[in-house]
């Protein structure tokens, strides 16, 4: 009886379906129709183009600092694509592709990064939370939503996201543990891009994979190639199926690399080599998937160009819409900062609102602030 080994009922796996050269592992190919495959591609591409456009806009002072999502499209799209409308999404802030697919208008996202609460107003009919800034805190909301689904006996699931760095927060631990204990239908997706701003994962944790954290909670865990949309899709489908069957949460680690800066305010040259980045550029998710679609005969060059053009037009329209909204009376009115503190405005806040209203009336100012362009700021998120 003395030194006896403890058997753990877990095996950890690494999953990849499309390799770097877009070669498919046939046995693992998920059942997806051509249309579905094209939809995956479309939103990944739209997110990429939007990201590029936003970078320009940021440089021009037309939006503020934002975290780029380029290179991470396979993760959010491969996973969020598995959700039903009545399921819930609890994002972090690099899930642009999936959010667009979910129905978040790009103009809303643009308003968000241009400093308008309206950008965090969840569109009607969508069961999502807005992006979340304090890292890992949203994971508890996801766990709570999952617990509520169980309480209400509704067979829905929650999908939530966090970064490798965010895994160090106490809230991440508490969320994984609550979800496990209460058998909540939550799929936790760790977007492991190997950096938290400048801090490499080796300084973030001593464990070799984030996936093995699952063992600590008696939870299923898997590591997948985060640049392979089919692998992400497959792992998420499996996790969601288990969750819907009442088998509880899963932790999916999506291994990727952030080949952009952390945000538009960041300079990665300070902390990592160009070589390292270059190596990962070869594993970029969009090109790989496009090649696969082409090989499979689903998308020829002409069709590809057509999609590109459509998306460009959509983005142009969204930018125009966002900039128009930003200039509207409603969005520019600073007094609205008071209007959503509580369902009913208490007297002391009404007084403060009046104080500001009087001040603005007297000075006829602040009205224009919202629309002004500004130099980029050094703020990170």
């Amino acid at each position, binding site marked *: 009886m003395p030194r006896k080994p403890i058997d753990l009922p877990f095996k950890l796996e690494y999953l990849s379906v499309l390799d770097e050269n877009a070669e498919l592992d046939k046995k693992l190919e998920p059942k997806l129709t051509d249309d579905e495959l094209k939809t995956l591609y479309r939103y990944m591409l739209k997110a990429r183009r939007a990201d590029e456009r936003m970078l320009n806009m940021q440089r021009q002072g037309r939006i503020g600092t934002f975290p780029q999502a380029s290179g991470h499209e396979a993760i959010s799209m491969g996973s969020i694509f598995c959700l039903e409308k009545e399921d819930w999404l609890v994002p972090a802030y690099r899930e642009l592709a999936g959010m667009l697919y979910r129905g978040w208008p790009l103009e809303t996202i643009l308003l968000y990064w241009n400093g308008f609460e309206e950008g965090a107003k969840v569109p009607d009919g969508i069961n999502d939370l807005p992006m979340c800034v304090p890292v890992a805190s949203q994971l508890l*909301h996801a766990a709570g939503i999952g617990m509520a689904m169980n309480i209400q006996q509704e067979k829905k699931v929650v999908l939530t996201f966090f970064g490798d760095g965010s895994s160090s927060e106490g809230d991440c631990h508490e969320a994984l543990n609550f979800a496990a204990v209460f058998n909540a239908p939550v799929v936790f997706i760790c977007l492991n891009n190997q950096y938290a701003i400048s801090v490499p994962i080796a300084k973030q944790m001593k464990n070799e994979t984030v996936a093995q954290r699952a063992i600590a909670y008696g939870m299923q865990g898997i590591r997948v190639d985060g640049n392979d949309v089919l692998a992400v899709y497959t792992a998420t489908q499996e996790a969601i199926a288990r969750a819907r069957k009442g088998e509880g949460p899963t932790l999916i680690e999506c291994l990727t690399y952030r080949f952009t800066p952390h945000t538009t305010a960041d300079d990665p040259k300070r902390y990592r080599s160009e070589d390292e980045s270059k190596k990962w550029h070869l594993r970029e998710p969009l090109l790989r998937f496009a090649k696969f679609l082409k090989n499979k005969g689903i998308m020829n060059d002409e069709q590809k160009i057509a999609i590109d053009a459509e998306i460009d037009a959509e983005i142009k329209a969204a930018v125009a819409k966002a900039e128009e909204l930003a200039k509207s009376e409603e969005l520019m009115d600073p007094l609205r900062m008071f209007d959503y503190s509580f369902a009913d405005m208490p007297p002391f*806040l009404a007084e403060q609102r009046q104080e500001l209203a009087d001040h603005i009336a007297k000075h006829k100012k602040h009205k224009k602030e919202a629309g002004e362009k500004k130099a980029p700021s050094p703020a990170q998120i």
Partner: protein
Amino acid sequence: MTQMNMAKAINLALHEAMTKDKRVIVMGEDVGQDEGVFRITEGLHAKFGDTRVIDTPLAESGIVGTAIGMALYGLKPICEIQFAGFDYYNYHQLESHAARFRNRTRGRLSVPMVMRAPYGAGIRAIEHHSESREAIYAHTPGLKVVIPSGPRNARALLHSAIQDPDPVIYYEPKAVYRLFKEEVPDAMETLPIGQAQVARKGKDITLVSYGASLRPTLEAAELLEEEDGVHAEVIDLLTISPFDAATIVESVSKTGRCVVVHEGPRTCGIGAEIIARINENAFLYLEAPVKRVTGFDCQVPYFSKERAYLPDAERVLEGCRATLSF
């Protein structure tokens, strides 16, 4: 009408609310089978079961963070933090999320939840079990803070807190839990959040207090009348944020003198804000500086000395006399 103490009255409100509204959920450490370390959740687990009365893991941020998720989903969670001294562990969830979702989403989402916690000194408890830091919540935009002073208002205010569409911090003066009984009506009642009560009428000086400090304040008012023939008006705040400045201002405009009594630390406490509001709204009526009889700005001492830390009737009385003789 039934005679009951505050612990029982809060428990009654929980039973009533859970019976009335299926969306109401109670969660926290030891709230289930153990019925709470102060037995405030007595009978709930037996009546409503595991699904609606949830023993959570030992993690305050986890409790409040998942409650936020539940509230966003449409439930009405009431979470118990075992002692207010541990709610700092979950403060970031309240500040960053519970208090913000309505504003952040322009009213699209909201967080109708209640965080209950026993607070305050006076029961010979160990370190971290005696703080009174409601001012932190009062300073936090987007949160309401309610503190009852007796059984009847405890029950009514808890109902109001549960029905409120926004997050409410409901601090329970644990020294009052079993201190006295009071008639509580059979029918469910509420009290408007944001409204103070005049607990004693008077014309010579205004005393403002709340929670466990109300009783020594009332005692002092009695003594003042007996010994000095002075008639003190006593205001029981009940809501700490947003508090009822109008009632205070009205009273002080009449009496010209005011003493604020609370056990939380003095600096940047509720007393400071009350003074500021009186200064802003009743400046010309004031005949003496507003006096603060409060906890001190040191740590609440370990229990062998906690009574010296707490404002008692004698300290309030002295404060009144100093104010009256200014």
